[in-house]
C-alpha cells in the first residue's frame, strides 16, 4: 500500500478513486507518564512519554485507515491528513483521513 500526503504519486497514475477512508483512536495517558511529565515541567526538555503516546495513537489510527482502504480494494491512499482533538483532560483523539485510490505505474 502506497501512502502519501500529496495528491499524486511520482511514476503512478490514479485509475480509480474509491473514496474517503479514515481511522481514529482516543488514547489516555497513564499515571506514571503524568508524574514524569510533572517533573519535566520544572526543568524543561522533551516529554518522551507524550511523544510515544502520540506515535502509538498515530500507528493505531493509520492501521485502521489502511484496513478500510484494503477492504475497498485500493492499493494506495493519497492526500492523507492528521487532526487531533482533546476529548477530555487526560485523553486525546487522533484522527487520520485520506482518499483511497487504485494506482498503476504510468506508461512512458
Amino acid at each position, binding site marked *: 500500500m*502506497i*501512502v*502519501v*500526503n*500529496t*495528491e*499524486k*504519486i*511520482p*511514476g503512478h497514475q490514479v485509475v480509480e478513486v474509491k473514496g474517503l477512508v479514515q481511522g481514529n483512536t482516543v488514547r*489516555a*495517558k497513564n499515571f506514571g507518564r503524568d508524574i514524569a*511529565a*510533572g517533573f*519535566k*515541567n*520544572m*526543568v*524543561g*526538555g*522533551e*516529554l*518522551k512519554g*507524550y*511523544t510515544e*503516546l*502520540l*506515535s502509538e495513537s*498515530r500507528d493505531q489510527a493509520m492501521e485502521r485507515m489502511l484496513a478500510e482502504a484494503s477492504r475497498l480494494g485500493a492499493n494506495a491512499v493519497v492526500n*492523507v*491528513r*492528521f*487532526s*487531533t*482533538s*482533546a*476529548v*477530555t*483532560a*487526560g*485523553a*486525546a483523539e*487522533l484522527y487520520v483521513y485520506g482518499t483511497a485510490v487504485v494506482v498503476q505505474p*504510468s506508461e*512512458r
Partner: protein
Amino acid sequence: MTGLLILWLLAPLLLLAAGLFIGTLVERRHLSDLQRREAQLDSIFVTDVGDFFAGDPAGGATLIVSEVVIASDYFKTFAAGLRGLIGGEIRSYVSMTTRAHREALLRLKEQAQRDGYDALCNVRLDSADVGGNVHNKKGGLVMVALLASATAYRRRRR
C-alpha cells in the same frame, strides 16, 4: 515549625533556580544538538508544496510522520506569567516552540534518510493536543506538542 515555614517560602525560589539553571542547560544542549544534526541533513531537499520537484518517477514515494512534545521549565512558565501582566511577546516560549518546530522537521528528514529518500515535499506541521494540555488550564502542564507529516521521494540524478 519555623523550618517548615522557611521551606514553604523557599520552595518556589528553589524551583525557579532549578528551572533557570537546568532549563537553560537543557535548552542549550538541545540547540547545539539541533545544529549538528541539521548540518548532517543539509542535502535533503525540503518544500511544503504538494509537487515533486525534479522527482524520479521510478523512485517511489511514502508518507513520513514525526511527533515531538517539549516541556516548558518552571522559569519559563514564571517569566510568561509576568509577561501576561503587561502583554507583549513571550520570548521564553518562542525559543521553546522554535526548538519544537526544528526538532519535528529534523525527525522527518532523519526518517526520510533512513528510508533512502533524498527529498521531502508537502511538509505539514500541526500542533497536537495531548489530553487537553495544549490549551493550558490552571495547574496544567505547559508544553508544545507537534505532529509533522510530509511525503518523501527521490530526486532525479543530474
